């Protein structure tokens, strides 16, 4: 008889195999493993590169990094708010009841956006108060332009949140980790903590396709030069309109796909 403490390689391998089976079937799980180290390395690499030559410039403007951080939170919380509202229905296995009721998919989208607004207000509101207490910095010093930054970042967050919800409707809860990380794809190229000009030329071209890059450039212009860049504002608005249309279209496409595959009564199990 083997001792209770004896380890069985066979059993350990069986348990490893259980996860390998999952990885083999789920590309989202594999991507997620490489995702965070890559994002952190890229983001902090650019920050380090920028600060090495421009640290005095940053130091001259109090609140530059705190403003950037708070505005980033608006984007992140906005996206998370939409995605998590949808996940709540999946965790509860309630989608079936919802979609046999007169609730339209677009009404569900609208409700997710409304919930996201409240979640963001609570999350970012707390951070704003903390910034005031800890660093004596009020983001409201940005003045009226702050409203435009908030609005643009929220809409962008909602669009990405809808894309994540669509992904989860298509691939199931295996893709839920994208809710926590999808937006960070944009972090290194949004110019949150450094200007877009720090990026290599080819990456700048990609960065300007994101509404976030225009918002953070606008933020720096207000803080450093006391100028509101209307061009950046309208470009962000235009891009957000496109992202929002894409987000809604993907969500509705995933909904129709789930109807074809019979997933609406089962998803979440």
């Amino acid at each position, binding site marked *: 008889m083997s001792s209770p403490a004896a380890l069985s390689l066979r059993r350990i391998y069986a348990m490893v195999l259980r996860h390998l089976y999952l990885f083999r079937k789920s590309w989202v799980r594999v991507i997620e493993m490489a995702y965070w180290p890559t994002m952190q390395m890229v983001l902090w690499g650019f920050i380090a590169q920028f600060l090495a030559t421009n640290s005095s410039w940053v130091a001259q403007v109090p609140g530059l990094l705190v403003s950037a951080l708070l505005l980033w939170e608006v984007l992140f919380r906005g996206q998370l708010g939409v995605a998590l509202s949808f996940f709540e229905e999946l965790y509860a296995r309630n989608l079936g*009841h919802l*979609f046999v*009721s007169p609730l339209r998919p677009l009404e569900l989208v609208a409700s997710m956006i409304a919930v996201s607004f409240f979640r963001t207000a609570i999350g970012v509101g707390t951070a704003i108060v903390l910034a005031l207490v800890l660093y004596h910095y009020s983001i409201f010093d940005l003045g009226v332009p702050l409203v435009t930054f908030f609005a643009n970042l929220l809409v962008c967050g909602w669009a990405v949140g809808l894309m994540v919800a669509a992904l989860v409707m298509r691939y199931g809860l295996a893709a839920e980790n994208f809710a926590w990380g999808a937006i960070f794809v944009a972090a290194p190229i949004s110019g949150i903590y450094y200007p877009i000009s720090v990026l290599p030329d080819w990456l700048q071209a990609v960065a300007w396709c994101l509404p976030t890059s225009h918002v953070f450039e606008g933020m720096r212009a207000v803080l450093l030069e006391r100028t509101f860049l209307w061009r950046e504002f309208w470009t962000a608005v235009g891009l957000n309109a496109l992202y929002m249309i894409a987000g809604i279209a993907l969500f509705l496409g995933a909904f129709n796909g789930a109807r074809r595959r019979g997933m609406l009564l089962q998803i979440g199990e």
Partner: protein
Amino acid sequence: MTPAIEVRDLVKRFDAVEAVRGISFTVARGSTCALLGGNGAGKTTTLSMLLGVLLPSSGSISVLGEDIARHRYRVLGRMNFTSPYVDLPKKLTVEENLRMFARLYGVRDMKRRIAVLAAELDLADILKRAYGALSAGMRTRVSVAKALLNEPELLLLDEPTASLDPDVGDRVRTQLMDYQKRTGATLLLASHNMPEVERMCDTVLMLRAGRIVDAGAPAELIARYGRSTMEEVFLDVARRPERTIERGPDEIRLERE
């Protein structure tokens, strides 16, 4: 008056698997009809298509006189559904759940309607409890209450008394039958509970491997198969060579394969 449900040549394929194979049937208004069949017979797939949450590969479905493929939202407010396999939000209380769905269905005088259902389904004591903290039997009763909130003209029930003890199961059945008697609603249920089918249903559609293999009133089927219960009929149908029935609005034609 149009039938409550009219299904024509309904087919559902999942890749290579044909889950529903060209079934046609009608359900008259005010009647109770059962979809009976073993696992994988196509009962839930058919119910899902009737609800519009699953798109058919081909065929047509008319519910309460509306084409479900084109005008689903015209009828969803006039029908409802319950299944032990689809949950309600667990962290909300029973009352919060019922209020949420009452709003989704546009129920007037929500408070009164919830109070009536709570009394009828013996939910008054658990209204303030979280749905997730309830026993399976209690959850089923809450789910039935949710399904009756909007006083539906058509009620689709997927195993409505699964996991209920005989006493509570009997009360739920009585409640559903009373509801139908009072409102003239149409009930379509998928069930494995043969005594339930015998007691509640006017007609039974027997499904096997995605096809309707027989149909009729429970007493008619029992007599036709020379048996004494629906359970014996069910076993006969499950084990005998396949028979197909094509049922039009005015005709029933039996064919032996």
